[in-house]
């Protein structure tokens, strides 16, 4: 039954993607990509990736759509219909696709427990997590501890992207705005419903942050959720009110502080005589040390992601109001 459902979802995914590409209206394309993200999140969930599904639903379907719509406000919604290289493109894409399809016949069957991907590291991670870190969520253990270097790198990529956007679009400052942003304040129904939702989204974000060791969640998802709740507030009450609640300098400090916290926890490991990002020395008990380390770096990740996503959102919106 699940298999039929997942095949149905995959077909739906392809149809949505095809529609998003075919339409010449960019607004429609962006909305279809939002639906695509939601569908692929359900697919991830069916494939046992609850953490990934949560991230994709919050980031892909929520924040990404808002950002694209924010940017579309400056652009012509209608794509000019003309593509001279269409046939050549179609041919080269089909050939590449067919070669890849031919290669799939050598791939291990879907869900095969003996596939090479499941042989080497995966069993080790599953066995070692309980003895070395002792938290139920293996994903969080790998993300925070076993592959902490990777995650540190990703956090700095996110920070760099945030800094890049702020350089390209100027930091929003209240003085430069032409007039006060009223948001949806005069629309009763969105305002009332949104006001009811915001505290719960925020609460859920905090739950996901602090419960990430026990259930699906962690800093990345929590950061996206908290950012989403503030973005909703900004849409309802206007950007000025949102910037009064969380000014841009706080956001800038937040995103650098998160990355610093992560790197700092790594440095503490060095000063205590262990390797960079080795949390075992943070406490007298190595397992407790690992847990403290993971909680701290997850907090750092949450700070950075919230700060960067909100800064990007504000930069895009403010651009339209100063020009």
């Amino acid at each position, binding site marked *: 039954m699940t298999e039929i459902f997942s*095949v149905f979802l*995959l077909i739906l*995914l*392809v149809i949505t*993607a095809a529609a998003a*590409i075919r339409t010449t209206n*960019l607004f429609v*394309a962006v909305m279809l990509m939002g639906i*695509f993200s939601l569908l*692929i999140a359900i697919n*991830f969930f069916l*494939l*046992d*990736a609850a*953490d*990934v599904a949560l*991230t994709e639903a919050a980031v*892909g379907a929520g*924040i990404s759509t808002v*950002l*694209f719509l924010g*940017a*579309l406000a*400056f*652009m*012509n919604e209608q*794509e*000019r219909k*003309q593509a001279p290289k269409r046939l050549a493109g179609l041919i080269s894409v089909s050939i*590449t*696709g067919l070669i*890849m399809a031919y290669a*799939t016949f050598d791939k291990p*069957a*879907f*869900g095969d*427990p003996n*596939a090479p*991907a*499941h042989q080497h590291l*995966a069993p080790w991670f*599953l066995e070692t*997590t*309980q003895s070395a870190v002792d938290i*139920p*969520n293996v*994903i969080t253990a790998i*993300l925070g501890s076993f592959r902490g270097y*990777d995650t540190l790198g990703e956090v700095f*990529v996110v920070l760099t992207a*945030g800094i*890049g956007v702020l350089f*390209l*679009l100027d930091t929003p400052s209240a003085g430069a705005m032409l007039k006060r942003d009223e948001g949806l304040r005069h629309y009763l129904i969105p305002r009332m419903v949104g006001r009811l939702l915001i505290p719960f989204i925020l609460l859920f974000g905090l739950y996901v942050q602090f419960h990430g060791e026990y259930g*699906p969640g*962690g800093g*990345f998802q929590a950061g*996206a959720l908290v950012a989403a709740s503030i973005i909703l507030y900004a849409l309802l009450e206007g950007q000025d009110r949102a910037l009064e609640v969380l000014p841009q300098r706080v956001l800038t400090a937040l995103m650098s502080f998160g990355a610093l916290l992560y790197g700092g926890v790594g440095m503490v490991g060095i000063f205590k005589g262990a390797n960079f990002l080795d949390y075992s020395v943070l406490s007298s008990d190595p397992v407790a040390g690992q847990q403290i380390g993971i909680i701290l770096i997850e907090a750092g990740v949450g700070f950075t992601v919230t700060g960067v996503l909100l800064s*990007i959102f504000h930069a*895009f919106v403010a651009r339209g109001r100063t020009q």
Partner: protein
Amino acid sequence: MIVLDLFHYWTFIALLMMGFYTVIVKNNLVKRLLGLSLFQSAVFLLFIGIAKVEGGTTPIFTKLVDSQVFSNPLPQVLILTAIVVGISTSALGLAIILRIKEAYGTIEEDEIQSREEEAQ
């Protein structure tokens, strides 16, 4: 059944090629960025598909589930972080497109190029 066994891979290929097609054929820069994120989502689907183990569950130890078979956590970790990095890079791309729009007044690539030639 071979079709069901390989269906995930084929969906991945279809999505990947659609994204690829959009990136190489379309003139509109926003559309290209959408194509790029489609390409990215296809890769996510491939990784998560590979991580799936028949009869497995989400890799979280809990007393609520008897099954001791877990799906592979490693690809899931890689994709989790990749999604957030993906949105950040998309936002950076959008910011660059916005500046291009302000400088050239268009986001169609051939028009940008002809304007560039006029200027020279």
